[in-house]
């Protein structure tokens, strides 16, 4: 009805802006019968549980990688670092003497893969690297940040 009579009538009177207003009115009439949109960052307990599960899945993936041969000589990270001990993730980034500069945890992981594990470095943003970091940090949960500590 709106299209066949009212709009053409409004057009004849030159009121183009009215067209937009009508559309808005139409839209709001439709909206009154639909649910309101989700507000930014209002997450539920179920969301938290779901996201934690997703994180722990990645931690589990990291644990598998940590305990597997990432290089060519069958040596795995856990052989020197049972439960990720002595990796000190809370101290990165820090100056690493023999690398000669301040590096992050992932650079140090790659140093270990290339040297004692005689392997090839992982891409710093690869899912494997994220998983390893997740596991190492999870095993060190609760320890205060101390970036730069030797």
């Amino acid at each position, binding site marked *: 009805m709106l299209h066949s009579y009212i709009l053409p009538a409004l057009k004849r009177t030159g009121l183009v802006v009215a067209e937009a207003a009508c559309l808005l009115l139409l839209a709001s009439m439709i909206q009154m019968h639909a649910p309101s949109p989700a507000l930014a960052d209002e997450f539920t307990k179920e969301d938290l549980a779901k996201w934690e599960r997703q994180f722990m899945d990645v931690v589990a993936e990291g644990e598998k990688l940590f305990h597997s041969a990432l290089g060519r*000589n*069958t040596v795995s990270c856990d052989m*020197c670092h049972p439960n*990720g001990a*002595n990796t000190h993730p809370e101290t990165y980034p820090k100056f690493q003497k*023999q690398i000669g500069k301040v590096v992050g945890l992932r650079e140090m992981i790659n140093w270990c893969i290339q040297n004692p594990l005689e392997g090839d470095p992982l891409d710093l943003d690869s899912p494997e690297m994220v998983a390893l970091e997740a596991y190492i940090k999870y095993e*060190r*949960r609760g*320890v205060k940040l101390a970036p730069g500590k030797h």
Partner: protein
Amino acid sequence: MKKKTTRRNFLKGAAAAAAAASLPLSLVEFSWGKQNPQNFTLAYISDSHLTHIKGTEFVRNFDKGLKRAVTECNFMSPKPDFVIYGGDLAQLGKRQELEHGLEIMSRLRHPVKWVIGEHDYYLDLGRFWQDKISKLTYSFDHKGVHFVVLNSILTYDSWMKQWETPEERMGNMARLDNPNGSPFMVGEPQIKWLKKDLAKVDADTPVVVMSHSPLYKIFKPWNFWTDDAEQVQAVLKPFKKVTVLHGHVHQILYNQIGNITFQAMMSTAWPWPYPVSYAQKKSQVPKLTVFMNRADPFAERDATGWSILDLDSGRVTNHYKLWENQDRTLRFDEKLKAPVDTRYQDESSRIPPQTHY
């Protein structure tokens, strides 16, 4: 100033020697044996974890460690009476690894007394070791000291039976932080054997026990542990001087529990963190221990090494030969009745690298 050898002195000496030669034999034995053990030197090499990759390829890093210990031990002066191999010659108990280890150890110019480790045992349950290397449990006397070797890395039958293959069983025991692991034990049969063996030993005779794992409780999650430690310690209680020498932990660790001194030996392969470094679980690392310097991963042989042991009146002085580091020495302090580090035991002498976190 040395006395000149005059004819009078010579005759005096000869008379004394003649008098000694006429003493009853039992008195001579008395002065060298029971009440007065001789002083002598031993070497202790342990935890080489030789790892087979494929074909004739082994992990170079670990090969280098054992080879270096063997070479340095060959140059010892004074020579050791014998060398103790503390266990974990192989990494996964494979025939290739054990044979590779035997080949390197055969270059040693001194006799060897062998102690088995879990990495040697769990693939074939010690069959190769007993066939080609040594008995698992035995004792012997040497210059007035009674030595005992125990297989301290046994575990519960129920855990042993659950694995589908020997490789699976070995792999699960090899992983230090395995949540499906099982605690070590000496076990009833060996404890019975130990009681019988020590029944013939005088309480004043110094006893040295060699086992792979520590015969006390430090950190169960990593099997720095013996489940029946108290029972073993009870059998050793009547003896005035007892020292337990062990490997397995790959770090400087020492303790005194009653009459028993415990000393850990280094690994030739790689160091392990102190259990205090694992934030999620509590540990019972002995307060007496002054930690070794934190391992520098950039120096391949750091925090690895071997030991020269001086037996002095039945007490063990442990000279840790630490590659890439200053050597450390443990001596038994008769006043404290405990082993102490000769340089760093006092709190005020500690240095920053000894702080582990």
